[in-house]
């Protein structure tokens, strides 16, 4: 039986600092660097969906088409969801339920407002983004924050949510798996 302990305030503060320091959406459309490719390779390896090629889209309309592509891979989404639920169950066994839920909600709300503004700035800079796409970008980024927080609170230090967050922190937006490709913006 897992002992119920207090939430790790220092770890949450550290995560908050990482969120504030991240270059949210600052490198959208730019050529991929070696670092981006290494993070993308780590992310695809963690997904365990076989060899995925890395693809790059360079503007918002392309990104929107990719996000609505009929051949997008539900396996990618399901893999993340399965892991999230497993890690959330582990965190729930470790921390008081209301404190855990409150911390995750407040962290995600705070991050959501930050990334929404960053997505709006990127969209204004690049042009051609549908208004709703800013909300989509903010949803994707705040989900990444939530997933990472759950993983760390569960004591998982090397989950696929770490490499996914690193891509966002480097200014990228991983748009998901379409066919046999991980698409990055």
């Amino acid at each position: 039986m897992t002992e119920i302990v207090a939430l790790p305030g220092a770890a949450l503060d550290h995560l908050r600092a990482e969120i504030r320091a991240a270059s949210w959406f600052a490198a959208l459309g730019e050529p991929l660097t070696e670092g981006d490719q290494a993070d993308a390779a780590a992310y695809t390896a963690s997904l365990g969906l076989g060899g995925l090629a890395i693809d790059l889209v360079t503007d918002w309309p392309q990104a929107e088409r990719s996000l609505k592509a009929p051949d997008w891979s539900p396996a990618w989404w399901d893999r993340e969801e399965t892991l999230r639920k497993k890690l959330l169950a582990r965190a729930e066994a470790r921390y008081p339920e209301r404190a855990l839920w409150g911390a995750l909600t407040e962290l995600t709300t705070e991050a959501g407002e930050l990334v929404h503004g960053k997505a709006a700035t990127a969209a204004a800079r690049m042009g051609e983004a549908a208004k709703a796409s800013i909300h989509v970008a903010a949803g994707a980024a705040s989900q990444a924050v939530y997933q990472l927080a759950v993983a760390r609170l569960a004591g998982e230090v090397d989950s696929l949510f770490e490499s996914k967050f690193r891509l966002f922190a480097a200014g990228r937006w991983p748009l998901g798996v379409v066919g046999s490709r991980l698409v990055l913006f």
Partner: protein
Amino acid sequence: MTQRITVKTVEELKDAPEEYREAVSKLVISHAINELYGARVFDEPAIAYAPTPYAKWLTCRVAMEEYGHHVRFKQLGEQMGIPEERMVPGTGKRPLSIFEFPLKSWEEFVAIKLLADLAEILQVEDLLHCTFHPLRNLARATMPEERFHAQFGEDFSAELVKTPKGKAALQAAVNEYFPYLPSFFGGSKSRNNEIFRKWNIKQRTNDEMRADYVKRATEIAAKYGLTLPEVRQAA
């Protein structure tokens, strides 16, 4: 008769009449709980039903904004001295009946955003001139997000009605959920509403809001070729 007072800060609230303080507390508790129920029962489960990553992440954002509304109302309640347990579900106040039906499909979620979020907009609109300014300001901060959620309902309704199958599924969802929505505005002879209006915390009677809602919901449904089922009004 209305009473003319204005409460500009949470600190000033302690000097307001007890009836006024109780009335604004009831509203804050009600919003904090209902925002949380909505996010838990509809928005978060809808992410799994959304058909594409675009729709999934848009739904994620909507869910997070709804959770965020709960957080904002709860923070205001905490500043007012309301215990946290009174602002979360399962601790006394019964949820609205619509929250007792678990979400079963994407079409249901779209119908809820189209019509239930319109009801939420009307509730928030009525607070935009509230004499308790912290609540008025919170309503103003919340309003653009509520409008976006209703627009989400319109945008995905427009997508669904492009096919006969999608339109039929959306109409079925409207038929199932709409009958619960007019009661969202409370009883015709509500004592709470009388007190809210007496102190200019809210502006309109429950019946005036309900009639306005049904009119606006009918117009929005018609834009997408949808009809609203007859609803028997309870007092």
